[in-house]
């Protein structure tokens, strides 16, 4: 159906379809490769297999009813989809979210970031052939999933937030359990590092591989950990402050070339490892400084924001998740648009991949931490 995009110009090349069903494309993505031996001469990423027309659905659904769909934009970090959408509607409505609700949102989001990064680093190790670290990461993730279940009743697709706040307060005792987990988690990261991060084979596979220069990273719209690992010190939580983030102390982790260069695959991996610790720090601060008060602002049952448009953005675990919301004053949005980190991360592939080997491509692709549903929405 799709016409052959890669023409055989070299005579000695092979066209290979990596995907749509391939273990390391992290979802249904088709990477059309032109190989010379095992070296990739050209790549054409073909996406859209998971296009669920969430944006079209948004135009057909009333504002509050669209919330569960936002989980499905990026199922690994559903909290951020919730938050970016709620923030957009709240801004249009002019609703002030109570401070306690903002804190709860931050806690939920940062826990979500931790488990999303756990998956990212785990699958990255798996792409390099080490299966065990993935399950160690999953073990921690399951623990956090239990917390998520206690926070909002769901383990993956949370639908936790509401326009104007969150639906319910933390259950008693949960904050203590989370703090206990954080103590454990801060010991887990060094253990995980002993298991895989410091492994010489692992390091050698990743350092100096697929270096994305800062200029390319900015031009290709990379965001989040991918952007920061290229040495660009930019974090929406700090530089475009939203929610309760200005009240917390945290470090914006950038790629420092701890081993190898700034912007290589190892830097991307390392930024995620470090960010998990920073997230743990934020959760700890939020739990200890949790203000009293309501968890939900007064919002009319029938939500009809005034005419207008707004672009809200949050720092999701896969980079900037933005929501461009246009209201025509009706019950349904005129336009909902999700700008996602994975979509923009895919645009960097044709620039960086040629010259890599197939094995490197899986490592590189893993290091970008792309989630297929988020690309296609």
């Amino acid at each position, binding site marked *: 159906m799709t016409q052959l995009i890669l023409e055989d110009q070299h005579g000695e090349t092979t066209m290979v379809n990596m995907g749509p069903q391939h273990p390391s494309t992290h979802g249904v993505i088709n990477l059309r490769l032109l190989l010379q031996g095992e070296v990739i001469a050209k790549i054409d990423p073909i996406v*859209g297999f998971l*296009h669920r027309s969430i944006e079209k659905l948004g135009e057909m659904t009333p504002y509050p009813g669209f919330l569960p769909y936002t989980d499905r934009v990026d199922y690994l970090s559903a909290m951020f989809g919730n938050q970016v959408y709620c923030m957009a509607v709240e801004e*249009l409505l002019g609703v002030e979210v109570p401070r306690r609700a903002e804190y709860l949102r931050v806690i939920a989001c940062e826990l979500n970031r931790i488990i999303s990064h756990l998956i990212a680093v785990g699958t990255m190790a798996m792409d390099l052939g080490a299966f065990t670290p993935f399950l160690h990461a999953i073990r921690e993730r399951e623990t956090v999933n239990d917390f998520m279940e206690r926070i909002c009743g769901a383990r993956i697709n949370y639908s936790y937030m509401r326009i104007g706040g969150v639906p319910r307060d933390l259950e008693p005792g949960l904050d203590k359990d989370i703090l206990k987990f954080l103590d454990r988690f801060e010991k887990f990261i060094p253990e995980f590092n002993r298991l895989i991060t410091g492994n010489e084979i692992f390091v050698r596979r990743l350092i100096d591989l697929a270096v994305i220069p800062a200029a390319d990273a900015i031009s290709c719209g990379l965001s989040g950990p991918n952007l920061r690992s290229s040495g660009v010190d930019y974090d929406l939580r700090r530089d*475009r402050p939203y929610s309760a983030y200005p009240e917390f102390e945290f470090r914006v982790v950038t790629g420092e070339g701890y081993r190898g260069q700034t912007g290589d695959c190892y830097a991307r991996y390392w930024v995620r490892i470090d960010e998990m610790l920073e997230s743990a720090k934020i959760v700890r601060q939020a739990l200890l400084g949790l203000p009293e008060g309501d968890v939900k602002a007064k919002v009319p049952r029938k939500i009809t924001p005034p005419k207008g*448009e*707004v*672009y809200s953005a949050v720092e999701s675990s896969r980079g900037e998740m933005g929501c461009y919301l246009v209201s025509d004053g009706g019950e349904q949005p*005129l336009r909902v648009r999700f700008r996602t980190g994975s979509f923009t991360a895919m*645009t960097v592939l044709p620039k960086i991949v040629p010259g890599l080997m197939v094995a490197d491509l899986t490592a590189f692709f893993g290091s970008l931490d792309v989630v297929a549903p988020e690309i*296609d929405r």
Partner: protein
Amino acid sequence: MSDVKRMHETLSRALPDIPLEVESAQAGMSWIHVPAEHIAAVIGHLRHTEGFDYLACLTGIDTGEELQIAYTLRSLPDKTECALKISLPRDEAVVPTISHLYGVADWFEREVFDLYGVHFDGHPDLRRIMMPDDWEGHPLRKDYVFPSEYHGISAERPDPHDLLDPEYEACAVDPAPKSDSKEGSTS
């Protein structure tokens, strides 16, 4: 927002030939409205002179009367944002590309082309991205008609309300009327 107003002044001074206007609605943000044919020049200026190095978002909007494209530019060092917007006629939407300015615009524009049918002039590789290559129509347009089938695969599902209908239940139990009704619906 003050960012936008300030940027409007700067732009008007630098590019006096291009009519630029600050617009806003009842709520939310304001934006600079740019004539469609000048968008590449304006963004090029913002990119190269004003330091807007990051294209945060590019999206199409169908208001029902016209197509619009909204550009959200950002300057990472200055931490400022600038929203631009262009309007296009629905039937013949052509706009200059900005894919030479931002790498990411390539895919963003492909998406807008795919879902809205806006043609980007000078785009190196304007193909469908989300939908299959042989898909007809541009789904995010307000006047889009949902196809009933794709390559012989029916896209129609029974209305969930029908399933609650006792008569429908009866149809489902008895095979003969069911096949009749199916033929009726597909033909």
